[in-house]
């Protein structure tokens, strides 16, 4: 029977929550990396036992962790404890935590500047990895979206990371600015049909696309309207919170922006608003049903100044029409006195039938629905604030 493994990153460690395909009885293991912020954990589609985790701390900085056995054991790639500290070639290990912007003449871009909160220019400075996106075909290849916004790639299983500097060096860089949570690259979508096409999103610069494997990038923000920036229709500067895509239709994108839920049918070249009858179109997460490409999910949040559900009622919303027409999903979710948030990397879907939908809250609950959103229940509760939720569907 199939199984699901839910990877939960929190403010104080990681947890793995597992069940069989019925998704009724759940087991929780953890905390892993206790006391550290785990911004994101994700498994390789090519090898589900290969997991990557971003472990970070305001005191000690960034650590990349890797598991080769489905999360039972972990190590920093290239630096297993108790083993020699140099490779047979004499190279010093310990590079897996090293995220250095590529300013070399051959492959990189000069260390450019971006806009700071006060309007001044400030050089890029690495702070943490927000999102890890393993390759669809190679377990040793993965992408890392970092703050200050840039995209890194490993091709050796996380032992070393190299910037795809064409993105940071895009000519609009000086107009990028941090959102309230920092200038983070938080979304990485790999096109399953075209390995040279990648979508990314940055708060608060917007969405970008490469069609040449990451060498050059193009802003894809036409149609976004952000009333809170000097030019509401600007080429860059939009606070995109999340983008989602169904693998069968990689040209169709859905976006939860700071305000507005958006849709593009041409790979981001043009967006249109599909907020429709949502009670508020502010929010962070958005995802697509595994088997119905026109069925999408969001969790509306009251406003940018009040990051909690409206009226204390936690409601996911589902559209079966690709947007505009939304229905509230409430069964099993708290409908009074609930003032949690659902952060941008904290929603996912499994690929079972019926499709499972999952989201985690800043109150430490992870809610799951094993029937596409009709009924919900907490699969774990009282964890530290949840930063990210990913699910693996296992044979």
């Amino acid at each position, binding site marked *: 029977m199939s199984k699901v493994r839910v990877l939960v990153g929190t403010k104080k460690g990681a947890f793995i929550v597992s069940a069989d395909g019925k998704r009724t009885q759940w087991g929780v293991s953890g905390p892993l990396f206790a006391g550290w912020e785990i911004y994101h954990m994700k498994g390789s589609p090519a090898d589900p036992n290969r997991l990557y985790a971003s472990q970070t701390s305001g005191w*000690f900085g*960034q650590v990349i962790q890797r598991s080769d056995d489905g999360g039972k054991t972990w190590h920093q790639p290239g630096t297993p404890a108790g083993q020699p500290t140099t490779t047979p070639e004499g190279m010093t290990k310990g590079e897996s935590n090293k995220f250095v912007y590529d300013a070399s003449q051959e492959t990189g871009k000069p260390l450019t500047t971006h806009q700071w909160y006060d309007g001044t220019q400030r050089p890029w400075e690495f702070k943490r990895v927000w999102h890890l996106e393993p390759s669809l075909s190679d377990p040793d290849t993965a992408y890392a979206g970092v703050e200050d916004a840039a995209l890194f790639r490993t091709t050796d299983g996380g032992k070393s990371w190299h910037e795809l500097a064409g993105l940071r060096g895009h000519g609009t860089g000086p107009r990028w600015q941090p959102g309230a949570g920092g200038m983070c690259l938080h979304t990485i979508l790999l096109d399953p049909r075209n390995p040279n096409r990648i979508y990314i999103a940055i708060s608060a610069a917007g969405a970008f696309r490469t069609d040449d494997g990451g060498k050059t990038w193009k802003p894809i923000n036409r149609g976004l309207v952000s009333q809170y920036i000097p030019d509401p229709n600007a080429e860059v500067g939009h606070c995109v919170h999340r983008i989602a895509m169904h693998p069968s239709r990689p040209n169709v994108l859905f976006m939860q922006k700071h305000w507005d839920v958006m849709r593009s049918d041409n790979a981001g070249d043009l967006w249109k608003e599909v907020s429709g009858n949502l009670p508020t179109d502010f929010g962070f997460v958005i995802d697509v049903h595994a088997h119905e490409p026109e069925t999408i999910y969001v969790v509306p949040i009251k406003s940018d100044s009040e990051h909690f559900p409206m009226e204390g009622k936690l409601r996911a919303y589902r559209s079966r029409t690709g947007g505009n027409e939304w229905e509230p999903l409430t069964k099993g979710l708290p409908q009074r006195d609930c003032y949690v948030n659902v952060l941008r990397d904290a929603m996912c879907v499994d690929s079972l039938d019926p499709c499972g939908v999952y989201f985690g809250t800043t109150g430490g609950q992870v809610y799951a629905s094993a029937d596409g959103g009709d009924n919900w229940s907490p699969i774990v509760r009282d964890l530290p604030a949840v930063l990210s939720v990913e699910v693996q569907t296992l044979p």
Partner: protein
Amino acid sequence: MIRVVLPAHLRTLASTGREVKLEVAGQLTQRSVLDALEVSYPMLKGLIRDHVTKQRRPFLRFFACEQDFSHEPPDTPLPDEVASGKEPLIIIGAIAGG
């Protein structure tokens, strides 16, 4: 052998106890101690000082013999008591956060 006391999270990463012992060649300074520490425990690279600039991470401090050496230049000699192993160099995280 000199002694270095690590904060709890770094002990976990390095799979060590509270205190590690190191051989340090030449004059004993913050830089020479951290260089030796990172050779023995490469998983700590970048977590005490920046990978490239080698600047101390802002929320970490270096103490020895009841003195704060955090703002001393990295090549300032450390006390003889540290060099002899009588006293440890203590790397400590700021008491902050939630």
